[in-house]
């Protein structure tokens, strides 16, 4: 049985269709990556899963229960961090955690609260007001709030936003820990392909509110779809010279400093040789993963996508 089943979900905000006939399912134990550009509809979908936004159409079931009918029963088994971990700045970390623990409907003692703060590494500052915390510490506290009632499903919406590289790495490790050692099911949304690729077992790519693809990360890693960015001194002339060759069929688009090709990995040396033979000075060759290539090929604004996957 799927832990989350979303069927033909849509959300219309006046004239803007934010989510369009979206269906997907999340299995127990998955780290489910939810990938899409900013404005693709990820946050709206997540907010519908948490009953913050009412769907215009469609059906959501979690743990085999209808979200509309069994809202409280379902939400007592869900923990979430939605975008920024905003908490009460005038309260301490301990007070914040205690407050939300009481709202979860479960009896949670002082020891458990302390243990949770210790797990996320802020126990030594638990009595300090949240207004004195760094973004990373707030994020850790947000995670503690999401986990305090021991939920089966954890939803993290853009959890690495605003974090420094160390914070991002810590978050990644925490998600993997939750999945591998605590057997939690995690839905994690991001606009960063690299992030999703590293932690997800299954993923969904959405664009303009529509499902583009859903599947295991491994199945999307198609070696025939390597993306190669070639930096050239004079891309325009190079493009003219390549127009008459077989390599033009692999050409995707111009980039700021060169040309982008999509081709099987084994053809890369041959392409390099062809460019040299045509007396085109090659400054560098940079491959992107097949998943990136896939993402690039299915999302609408290729220039933009290339920019944020670099």
């Amino acid at each position: 049985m799927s832990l989350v089943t979303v069927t033909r979900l849509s959300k219309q905000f006046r004239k803007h269709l934010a989510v369009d006939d979206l269906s997907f399912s999340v299995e127990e134990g998955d780290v489910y990556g939810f990938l899409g550009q900013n404005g693709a509809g990820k946050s709206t979908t997540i907010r519908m899963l948490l009953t913050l936004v009412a769907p215009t159409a469609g059906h959501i079931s979690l743990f085999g229960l209808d979200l509309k009918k069994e809202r409280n029963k379902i939400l007592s088994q869900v923990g979430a961090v939605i975008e920024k971990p905003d908490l009460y700045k005038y309260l301490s970390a301990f007070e914040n955690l205690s407050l939300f623990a009481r709202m979860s409907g479960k009896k949670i003692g002082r020891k458990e609260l302390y243990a949770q703060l210790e797990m996320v590494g802020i126990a030594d500052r638990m009595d300090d007001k949240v207004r004195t915390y760094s973004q990373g510490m707030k994020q850790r506290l947000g995670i503690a709030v999401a986990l305090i009632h021991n939920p089966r499903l954890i939803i993290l919406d853009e959890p690495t936003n605003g974090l420094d590289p160390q914070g991002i790495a810590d978050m990644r490790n925490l998600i993997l820990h939750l999945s591998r050692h605590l057997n939690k099911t995690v839905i994690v949304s991001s606009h960063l392909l690299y992030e999703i690729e590293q932690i997800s077992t299954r993923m969904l790519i959405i664009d303009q509110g529509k499902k583009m693809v859903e599947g295991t990360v491994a199945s999307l890693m198609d070696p025939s779809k390597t993306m190669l960015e070639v930096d050239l001194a004079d891309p325009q002339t190079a493009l003219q010279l390549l127009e008459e060759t077989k390599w033009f069929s692999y050409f995707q688009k111009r980039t700021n400093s060169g040309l982008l090709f999509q081709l099987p990995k084994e053809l890369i040396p041959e392409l390099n040789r062809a460019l040299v033979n045509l007396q085109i000075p090659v400054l560098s060759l940079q491959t992107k993963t097949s998943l990136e290539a896939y993402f690039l090929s299915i999302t609408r604004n290729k220039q933009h996508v290339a920019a944020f996957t670099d």
Partner: protein
Amino acid sequence: MWQLLQIELLKIFRKPRTYISFGAIAIMVIIIQIALKFDGRSYIEFIVGGLKESLEIPYTHILNGYFVCFVILNLLLIHIPLLIALVAGDSIAGEANMGTLRLLASKPVSRTGLMLAKFMATVIYTALLLIWLACIALLLSILLFGKNDILIARNDALEIIRSNDVIWRYLAAFAFATLALTTVASLAFLLSVFAENSIGPIVSTISIVIVFTILSEMQIPLYDRTVKPFLFTSHMLAWKGFFYSKMGADGSAIPGTIENFRAIGKSSLILGAYIFGFVSTAIIVFNKKDILS
């Protein structure tokens, strides 16, 4: 529900902004008390007007704690709605602004329960503010000025209420004031649902109270019949009715009586209807609201 109410009270009373109102009331009351302590005679002369020429006014008896409290209520109860709006207007919009509303609304508690807890916490805050006002306006005034009969100026006459007939009137007046201020709180609460930061609902509430008060005070016959009876501001000062006694044949106030209890009851019902309307609408709107903050 009790758990949610405790949480909401904790949030209200851990917020520094909450204490602005308590501080402001204390400062205003003490300023009035100081003024009356040093020059209460001028104020009494102002109240009795031309009667001072024909009557011998016992200024020292009149200037007592009960009288001072009555003066304070007259001067302050019209302004306290502004302080109530500070907290009530912040109840939902402040959470939306902080980003905590989405966290609250994704917890396994119903939105209606959440709203009722928030509203009840606001009512408790309002009641505590009035208890605070009662403590410093009544008890501190008694301490500073002593107790005696109270002189009440009415449109056409002066009324004297015996000192042993006063306390119950104050209790009733404070209870009524709580109802009146809860009406303002419920208006701010409703406006708070529509906003994503607390400035909007606070300013809007204050504006509405000011406009309605002006309309209530306007002497235009058409409005007297059609609009005024239905404005909540027309009923907010009905607490004064508890100090208007029935008059005996000798023209003195009859202890333990209220001249027009029916009017007070009617005002209470109208304010209650406003509260019910504002809070119900707030709950309905919030239940349908997409939380995007």
